[in-house]
Every structure is written in C-alpha cells, then in structure tokens.
C-alpha cells in the first residue's frame, strides 16, 4: 500500500531530515515509528500526505508516485489518509464539533450522516461534553483528542498519527491505542509515530526505529526499551553506550 524507495529529504535551510529511507507498509499493517527527537519521524509522515516533497527517491501510495500527483489530485489523496498532527492543527474559529465535521464536509458527506457520525466519534475519544467548545477553551489533551477524532471520522484506509498521546495521561493513552487497534482490526492501515516506548514495547506490533534520518531497525514483536525506566538505569545505559 505504501512504499518508500531511497527517499531523502533535505529542507531548504540545509537540514537533512531523512536519508535513504526504504520502507514498505502493507495494507492492514500496524506500524510504530519511533526514534529520538529530531530523528525525522514527522518528516517521514509529512511525505506521505504531501506536506513536503522528497528531495530524492519516491513515495508510492496505492501504486501512485505522490510527488507526481497533479495539484488537483492531492485533496483526494489526503481524503484517504486520516492524519493526527503533532501540533494538532485545529481550526481556531470552529468548535470541536465543527472541526470534526469539517473532515466530512470536505468529502461532501450529507448533513444527516455528519450529524450521526460526529457525536459518535467524539464519544469514542471521550469529548461528547466539549462538543461546542472552541479549541482555545480546551486542555492540551482534549485538543489532541479532537485531532484524533477528526482523523478517524471518515474511516480512512490509512491512518497516520504523529505523537497522538504526547499530551494524554497513561489511561487515556491506552484507550486511544485500543481505539487504533480496533480501527486497524477493521481494516485500516495504521502508522503511529510515538515516544511512548512503554506502549510500543507492550503492544507486539511492527516497530520501525528511525535515528538521525535513517532506519536503524525494522522488527516485529516486542522490542527492548532504550532505557530501563529510571534515572539510574538511564545513566547506566549512557555510560555503557
């Protein structure tokens, strides 16, 4: 479904974010993308929905080279991808309800369908009470969940989530991961970039590790955490490495 061939990304200011990325995500897979801050996770995801174009190499989605899409085709690509942004990207002048509804309006969904789907998905992320609040009136975690609701509301074939639990407490984080697993089980391909190693470690999914713009590991199954959970453990590891 999604393939990266020798993809490099260098930003105009000279920052090299990705180097020679080769990756194949099959339909129905659940992939964790992990790696230290600044490793290039967000950049990789941005290449998928064409926020950025690769400097070299190709990104193929459903058999089409994303860089070669004509401008008018781009919206239709994006409608097939649900995106949870690291910086939320909520529309500040729209309420929670309207923000989620927007993803449906865009595809021309009927008003009745919108009125049915939106409250349903807001209930899934636990925000039915904040339906008519504006983003500025929400806590960080609530905003993040609005972003998640918006990404899944139109059942996209591919879900791309960038750090979807960074502002959530462990309980809510697990609920969201559960939600992703259920969506995945229903057939949606899911790619999650995250720093939550504890969850990654416990969830038994494919894990792609990105470091300094390169893929350094691509495994299925439980992975060892890069630290042992405390300051002492981390220091040990540091002197050891």
């Amino acid at each position: 479904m999604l393939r990266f061939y020798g993809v490099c990304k260098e930003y105009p200011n000279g920052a090299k974010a990705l180097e020679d990325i080769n990756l194949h995500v099959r339909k129905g897979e659940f992939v964790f993308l992990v790696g230290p801050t600044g490793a290039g996770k967000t950049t990789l995801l941005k290449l998928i929905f064409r926020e950025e174009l690769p400097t070299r190499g190709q990104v193929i989605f459903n058999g089409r080279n994303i860089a070669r899409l004509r401008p008018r085709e781009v919206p239709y690509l994006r409608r097939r991808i649900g995106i949870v942004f690291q910086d939320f990207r909520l529309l500040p002048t729209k309420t929670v309800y309207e923000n989620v509804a927007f993803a449906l309006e865009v595809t021309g969904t009927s008003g009745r369908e919108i009125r049915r789907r939106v409250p349903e998905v807001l209930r899934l992320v636990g925000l039915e009470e904040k339906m008519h609040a504006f983003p500025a009136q929400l806590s960080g975690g609530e905003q993040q969940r609005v972003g998640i609701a918006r990404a899944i509301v139109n059942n996209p074939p591919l879900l791309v989530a960038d750090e979807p639990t960074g502002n959530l407490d462990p309980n809510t984080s697990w609920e969201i991961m559960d939600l992703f697993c259920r969506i995945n089980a229903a057939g949606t391909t899911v790619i999650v970039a995250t720093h939550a190693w504890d969850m990654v470690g416990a969830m038994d999914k494919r894990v792609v590790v990105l470091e300094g713009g390169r893929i350094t590991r691509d495994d299925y199954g439980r992975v060892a955490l890069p630290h042992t959970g405390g300051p002492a453990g981390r220091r040990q590891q540091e002197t050891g490495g």
Partner: protein
Amino acid sequence: MRALKYYFREALLSIARNSWLSLAAVGTVTVSLFILGFSLLVVMNVNRLADYLESSVEVSIFLKDGLTGQQLQDLQNRIRALPGVVEVQFISKKQALEEMKKNLGPNRGLLEGLEEDNPLPDAFRVRTQRADQVAAVAKEAASLPGVEDVRYGQGVVERLVAVTRWVRLAGLASMALIGAAAVFLISTTIRLSVFSRQREIGIMKYLGATNWFVRFPFLLEGMMLGLAGSALAALLVHAGYAAVVRSVTGAMPFIPVVGQDQAFFALLGSLVALGLLVGAAGSLISIRRFLNV
C-alpha cells in the same frame, strides 16, 4: 445544493466570528467608495458646469446693409448648416440699439437721437454646441455672401476652451486615480484579513479540501463584505449628495447641478458593483498564494 448551503453558512459564520476583521473590511470599502462616489459626482458637476459655460459663448455675425428677406433667410439657413451650430438668432439694428442702451446704463444719454439714423448693422447671433467650434464657425461665416464682419470674444473663448478641456482631462485622470486607490485600499484590507487566516487555509488543505472548497466561503465572504460596504457607501453618497444639492441650489440657483437622475443612480449602482467585484477579486487573489500546500 448541500455544498452551497455549507458555503453560505461558512461565510456568514466567519463574518460573525471574525467580527473585527469584517468590520475593518466593511469600513474600508465604505470609506473608499464614498470618497470615490463623491469625487465622481464633483467631476460630473464640474463637467456639467463646463458644458454650460461653453454653450453660452456666442458669435455675432454682422450683416451688410440692405439685404432682402430672401437673402436673410438663405443666409440664416447656411449658417444653421455649419457644423456645431445649435442656435441662430436674428438681431435687427433696432434691437441692437436697445440692447446697447441697456448696457450703457447711466450713460445711455450718449445714444439719444440715434434711432432715426441707426448706424448699427443687422446681425445674427449664433450659439455653438461646444466652445471649441466657435472659431471655425466664425471663419466659415465670414466668407458667406452678405456678411460684413464676424466677432466673438476671441481671447475669452480660447481661454474657456483651454480651461474646460483641462478640467475634463483632470477630472478623468483623478477619477482613474481615486478609483485605482479605492481598489488598492479595499483589496489590501481583504488581503490582510485573509492573511491572518493563512494557517487555517493550510489546515483545510491538509484535511483534503479542494481549492474551490476552501476558496468559495472566502469568495462569498469577500462579496458580502464588499456588498455591505459599498451599499453603505451608496446610501451615504445618496444622502450626502441630496444635502449638498439642496444647499447649492438654495445658495446658487443659477448653477446647473447634476440631479438625482438616471446617471446618478447608474453611478450608485456602479459603486455597489465595484464593491462586490473588488471584494470577490480581492479574496480570490489573496487566497491563491496560501492554497499551494
């Protein structure tokens, strides 16, 4: 249908929620178009005044003595046929003397006793449509048989022609200028208001909105704000001009003013159309650079 409903709801919501931006845009449209409309009216009136002044210039064609009625008739017809001539009036020597007496006022005694042996000639008094046709008419008339002499206020007419031509040109130029300024000011304001929502536009695009889906509410919004502003401007021009005309005709009934006739309402209509157009075009143009994401 559904989309249209969405577009209108979005546009209205956006106007309401960005009330400050909306007010600024409407205010700018109103102020710019009010100035434009009023200046246009001033220019129209100055032109009307120039027309009036020009049409009051006369050519006096003095005739040889002893022409027959038939000759006079022929001459009058030929003069009337000259290009630009709109009125030909016959002034007999008797009428001429009466007029001269009137003009001399307290010195009218000078002309006493001339009635019997009137030395003044018969004359035609000719009006042309425009002042710059006077010289040509005078020249043509001078070569007609039976014409003794042709006179008109040479210096004055030339001046008048120069002034009115200049006034017309200046009026046209300043209208073009003020019009361009109004368009610039309005579109700048609308750009600024779109600019402040740059991020929103980007987000919409990332959610899979087509360009037209993003653009349409902005287009509608621009048109509504433009319409609101220009309608307000038209109302103000209407009311203001009525007040001005009232006080002008009160103080100076002799001055011809452009009334609230068809041309006036055409002007108001154009103002409104301009506001609508600039609002729409301003939104479309300014949103373009943010759509490429």
